[in-house]
């Protein structure tokens, strides 16, 4: 019910009341009456809910989250590599 879909703005009407968004290949119209006039422009990422743009998606924040996730995965991989080396060191069959 409260789900909203991330979409990309491909067109804004002259009166700034409507826009067209692309949601992974599907295009549809969305109402802009909940947004301030200059807020939404072509190329922006927005959240779409029951036919309305409810807010813009902050690209920098989205990228910062994705960056955090990559770093966490890096760290985990690093940890696992270290553990694998240690286990290898302790292996009695080593060098046999």
């Amino acid at each position, binding site marked *: *019910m*409260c789900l909203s879909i991330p979409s990309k703005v491909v067109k804004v009407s002259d009166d700034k009341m409507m826009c067209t968004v692309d949601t992974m290949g599907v295009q549809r119209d969305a109402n802009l*009456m909940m947004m301030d006039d200059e807020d939404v422009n072509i190329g922006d990422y927005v959240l779409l809910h029951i036919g309305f743009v409810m807010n813009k998606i902050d690209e920098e924040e*989205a990228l910062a989250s*994705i960056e955090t996730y990559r770093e966490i995965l890096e760290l985990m991989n690093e940890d696992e590599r270290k553990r694998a080396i240690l286990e290898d060191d302790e292996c009695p069959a080593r060098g046999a």
Partner: protein
Amino acid sequence: MSLELKNLYDDFRDGETIKAYAKIIAEDAKRLKTPLNIMEVCGGHTHTIMKFGLPQLMPENITFIHGPGCPVCIMPKERIDHAYVLAMQPDVILVTLGDMIKVPGSNGSLQDARAKGADVRFVYSPMECITIARENPDKKVIFFAIGFETTTPMTAVLVEQVIKLGIPNILFHINHVTVPEVMAELIDSRDVHIDSYNNQIDAFIGPSHVSVISGAKIYDKFPKEYGRPVVVSGFEPVDVMQGISMIVKQFVEDRCELEVQYKRVVNYEGNLKAQELIERYFEKMDLFRWRGLGNVPDSGLKLKDEFASLDAEVVYRDVLPIAEIEDHKLCICGDILRGMAKPPECTIFGTACKPTTPIGSCMVSSEGACAAYYKYGNLL
């Protein structure tokens, strides 16, 4: 790196990242002094949690409590009866959002009303009412409005357009409810079974899209006055895992704060234009009766008196039933929402009560706890 639409989907559902957070949570949870019950308030979160099997990824000392944030599930039967009665009036077209279609009232669902000849239409967006009204000038179009703060401003835009464009044949039946009041109720309420205050909820995962509109500010009092941390999180599984990790860290570090995980769309103030729209047309009702929970003060909205001529509850006052209708006595939805029981503990879960024949509120929509458990199997 520049952001692609694909990233907004894939990166927040990535299995490896989910596993990485599971490890971090398990590690941090070893330092918890007491077990944690975390309530995800919103039904969208409940759905994600069950769909991605997140309870299985939690250490033993972390439990989810599934909250009341599904607007379809919490609709008491008497209000569904209102929709049914309105739909049955001559020359009325009842319009609502798709989620309402199967919800049974005491006479049946809106689907049943339609089978009996009523003109009931399910729309994707409230704005479609304008087209329907223009195409049917001799009929009254009644929009049965449901939803939390997420959906309320869209109804407000429709009210505004009806007034501005002078459309004479659209009325509203308002069932909008608000989140902070019911969260407070869940902490405050005296447990009916053991006559003590129920303090099962240690922390909240704050709803995603309610917060887009209202801003994180609406949760200020929970850490400050109630001693319950709130982390507003997005709907994707990585969002939820990161949100839980942030909550656990607060407990480990002895903090009690309001934090936002879902920073890509939620800020402290929210969408001010949407908030203005809500305030312009709506005011609080004294009480709203939540299905499964009972009366919650100040948790429902209605049209302001100056717009009473648009209010179907006023215009059709004489035909609308007023009696409250209780839930089935075996249904334990109230306990589930308070974190005192899990769906499988209900004696009719999966037998008499199923998504196709829901008996209680939590089985009504896929965002309800019982329906999510039913759909995604015996995960716990």
